[in-house]
């Protein structure tokens, strides 16, 4: 019997059993003996200095083991570079407890270590800090005068500044027959994965640590810990077999890791530090952003001029960058463009990438102004996009490795019933509710990072695959197993994927929708290497039936070796191992994108979303009732887990458009809704009927697998599609996200 191709099969998650039985262990769940508990104390002022610390009441408490503050922090690495993780933006990295300076509200200023969790937590209420406060700035809209060019640093190649202007925007805009301009405001958002950030450190003695950490990058955090604490790389092992969501928040080592390791090394004990939910608002976040756009079009409905300026928030110590403004020119071939991106430093923690960073905020503005322009032109919004469709990338004039956006528009519109839309705003009613339909385009990059994989055909005839990547809920473990099984001609049950461990071969952190392309491609490459080794061995061995068979005729299938046109000639992997005197076969290989080839192309994933909303006429409450997203993201390895990625990111889009925002009190400089009761994310009752369509997209150029990644693309079109649907329902354009009923009632907009 022939194995079915495993790529493309909707396999259920292979770790499903562990997750539904509670056996899956997350970072805070390793209950090793003699564990101490650390509790973090955070600054209650926004800017200034600590003048003194009084720990006497804490020390008097039974069960308290140690208090760490800036006053007694042991001296550690002092080069900033040694604190710089792989995702560190330009600037000066924050070094916990290194001085008495307060840079933002919620900054960690002490760690209390006690025999149990309750004592550590209670003790945190007894420590007294005397501060000297300074005035501060935390609201972007009040500090636009501080906006300046972002600094250049190591991460700049991954997040380049906006492209140079093309044509003459001002002239083209002035003479455009149709034009529209608008401002868009986005508030702060926090990732809030459901699992709290936590680290459990096992002190192994002799400068050796085993660390269970909540992270998206085991190797990133291993290097960070080794560099900062002066340990040998091989003595630091970071494990993250299960990660309870991250969405970008785990791209950089967070402060609980630093504090937990500090305590563990100083006390020579096993230590756990878990953050509380309110502390999940005390490190990175999606930044506040203000965008101004001006788009112009000619009589024939062609966009001729595009100007997109954005100002984002960063901290006073690092320049966090997003790619916000260049997206329109990857879609629409306007001859005249002008893009600008600036940063205003504020007294807040440095922002960090949050699902579809930059893209989702930028595309919201772009696709709303496109909708507005379509209305000015009296064109259907979808026809307007099609009228400005480009097969090549207008910003580089290079062809795409593949682009099936047209298919997304077509299939999405059909499924949704877009052609039945009455374009007139506020024209469709359902009882007391106004019904609106909106659509938007989505785009995201298709990244691939270098990755190394190791494979072993074991003595038992099983395939082991090793790579350091995490699986943050994306389905990575299942997908990698499928890729490996398919390439080696073995069943999924006979493959074990070992991951989430810094000891394994290199993987970048899991971000940017890049891991399937990165680790997946490395797995294909290393298995091909393994197959070559095996073929050589079998052809060289005496009396081998494969001796005379040309190499390219030998195939791996059904857990053994066979010959293309002679299926009867077959030996199992077990027989192969026996022929190899019981010895296993091994291979390791580093693979990366084919830069030479890809230089001639642009690469992107695309999507189109169609949304229906209902707006209560009296109360202004908005409900999404239907949403369809069609995605073109190359080959889909597992339609079940990929669909879940798209559904999840559609909900993130709904949340961004209608629900979530962290609110800052400008007088206190502090987040006011740092809990899950007041930081609103959609609950089950908010979830509409949703459909996901995958366009057929064959990409023979992007990488061996033809995959592009599905982690963020499903989110990028939704906020604009919702805002456009709200306009269609009510005739009001609200450009200030999230759209809440009060904005609609007052229609103050931005």
């Amino acid at each position, binding site marked *: 019997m022939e194995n079915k191709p495993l790529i493309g099969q909707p396999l*259920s*998650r292979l*770790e*499903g*059993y*562990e*997750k*539904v*039985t*509670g*056996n*899956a*262990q*997350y970072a*805070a*769940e390793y*209950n090793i003996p003699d564990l101490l508990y650390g509790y973090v104390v955070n600054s209650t002022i926004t800017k200034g200095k600590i003048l003194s610390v009084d720990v006497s009441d804490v020390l008097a*408490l*039974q069960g308290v083991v140690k208090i760490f503050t800036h006053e007694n922090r042991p001296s550690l690495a002092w080069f900033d570079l040694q604190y710089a993780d792989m995702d560190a933006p330009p600037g000066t990295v924050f070094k916990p407890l290194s001085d008495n300076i307060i840079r933002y509200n919620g900054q960690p200023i002490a760690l209390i270590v006690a025999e*149990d*969790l*309750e*004592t550590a937590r*209670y003790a945190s209420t007894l420590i007294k800090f005397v501060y000297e406060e300074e005035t501060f700035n935390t609201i972007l809209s009040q500090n636009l005068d501080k906006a300046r060019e972002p600094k250049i640093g190591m991460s700049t190649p991954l997040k380049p500044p906006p492209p140079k202007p093309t044509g003459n925007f001002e002239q083209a805009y002035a003479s455009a027959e149709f034009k529209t301009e608008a401002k868009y405001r986005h508030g702060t958002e926090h990732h809030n*994965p*459901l*699992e*709290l950030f936590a680290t459990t450190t096992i002190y192994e003695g002799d400068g050796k640590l085993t660390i269970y950490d909540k992270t998206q990058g085991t190797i990133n955090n291993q290097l960070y810990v080794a560099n900062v604490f002066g340990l040998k790389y091989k003595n630091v092992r970071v494990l993250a077999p*299960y*990660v*309870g*969501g991250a969405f970008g928040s785990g791209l950089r080592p967070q402060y609980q890791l630093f504090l937990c390791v500090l305590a563990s090394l100083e006390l020579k004990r096993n230590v756990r530090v*878990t953050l*509380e*939910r309110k502390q999940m608002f005390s490190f990175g976040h999606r930044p506040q952003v203000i965008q101004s756009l001006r788009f112009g079009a000619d009589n024939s409905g062609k966009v001729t001029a595009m100007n997109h300026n954005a100002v984002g928030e960063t901290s006073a110590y690092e320049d966090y960058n997003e790619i916000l403004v260049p997206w329109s020119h990857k879609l629409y071939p306007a001859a005249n463009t002008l893009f600008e991106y600036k940063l205003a430093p504020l007294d807040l923690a440095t922002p960090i990438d949050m699902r579809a960073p930059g893209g989702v905020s930028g595309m919201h503005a772009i696709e709303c102004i496109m909708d507005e322009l379509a209305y000015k032109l009296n064109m259907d919004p979808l026809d307007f996009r099609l009228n400005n469709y480009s097969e090549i990338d207008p910003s580089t004039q290079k062809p795409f490795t593949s682009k099936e956006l047209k298919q997304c528009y077509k299939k999405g519109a059909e499924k949704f019933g877009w052609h039945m839309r009455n374009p007139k705003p506020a024209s469709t009613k359902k009882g007391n509710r106004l019904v609106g339909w909106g659509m938007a385009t989505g785009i995201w990059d298709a990244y691939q990072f270098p990755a190394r994989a190791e494979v072993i055909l074991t003595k038992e005839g099983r395939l082991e695959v090793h790579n350091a990547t995490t699986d*943050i*809920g*994306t*389905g990575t473990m299942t997908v990698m197993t499928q890729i490996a099984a398919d390439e080696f001609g073995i069943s999924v049950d006979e493959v074990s994927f070992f991951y989430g461990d810094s000891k394994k071969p290199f993987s970048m952190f899991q971000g940017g929708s890049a891991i399937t392309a990165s680790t997946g491609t490395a797995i294909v490459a290393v298995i091909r290497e393994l197959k070559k080794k095996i073929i050589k061995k079998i052809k060289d061995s005496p009396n081998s039936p494969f001796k005379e068979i040309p190499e390219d005729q030998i195939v791996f299938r059904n857990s053994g070796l066979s010959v293309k046109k002679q299926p009867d000639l077959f030996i199992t992997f077990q027989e192969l191992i026996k022929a190899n005197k019981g010895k296993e076969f091994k291979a390791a290989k580093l693979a990366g994108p084919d830069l030479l080839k890809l230089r001639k192309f642009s690469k992107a994933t695309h999507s189109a979303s169609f949304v229906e909303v209902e707006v209560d006429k009296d109360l202004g409450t908005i409900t999404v009732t239907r949403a369809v997203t069609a995605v073109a993201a190359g080959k889909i390895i597992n339609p*079940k*887990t990929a*669909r*879940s*990625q798209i*559904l*999840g*990111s*559609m*909900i*993130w889009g709904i949340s961004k458009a209608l629900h979530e925002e962290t609110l800052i009190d400008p007088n206190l400089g502090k987040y006011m809704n740092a*809990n*899950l*009761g007041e930081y609103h*994310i*959609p*609950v*089950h*009752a908010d*979830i509409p009927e*949703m459909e996901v369509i995958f366009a057929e997209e064959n990409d023979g150029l992007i990488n061996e697998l033809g995959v592009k990644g599905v982690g963020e693309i499903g989110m990028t079109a939704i906020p604009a599609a919702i805002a456009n649907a709200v306009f269609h329902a009510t005739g009001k354009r609200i450009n200030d996200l999230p759209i809440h009923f009060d904005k609609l009632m007052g229609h103050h907009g931005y």
Partner: protein
Amino acid sequence: MENNSSILTSLTINSKDYKLELLPWVSLLDTLRERLNLTGTKKGCDHGQCGACTVLCDGKRILSCLTLAVTKNGSDITTIEGVADGKELHPLQKAFIEHDAFQCGYCTPGQICSAIGMLREGKATTREDVKELMSGNLCRCGANSGIIDAIMQVKEGIDHE
């Protein structure tokens, strides 16, 4: 914390009897996770706002983070570790796997325990009811549709009997 006298508390957890010396301020959630190594029950907020810590107490769903363990003296608790019948998964557990009703899996134990309690309450008739009555359990990954699909499949099975 001045009065450090612990209280003898008897709990039956997943059919096993425990006699525990507990300080009165220790939550049921921290008792399970930190003292009994039953880490299947999750902590997402410790404030009754996310549902990740849901367990069944005498058959009813409760938030173990808002429950002081000593107040449940004599109660029968079922956590996610006790939901399956040996190796044989509970129908909801199977349905969750089949419908891909989780991504990171961190909300999953709470969702499953909550769904068991919710179905027992017998108040839900429609899909909309189920969505409403499950809304105390957040899922940040956005696996919501799969979760509701899985529950509906099991519910329809029960309604059929």
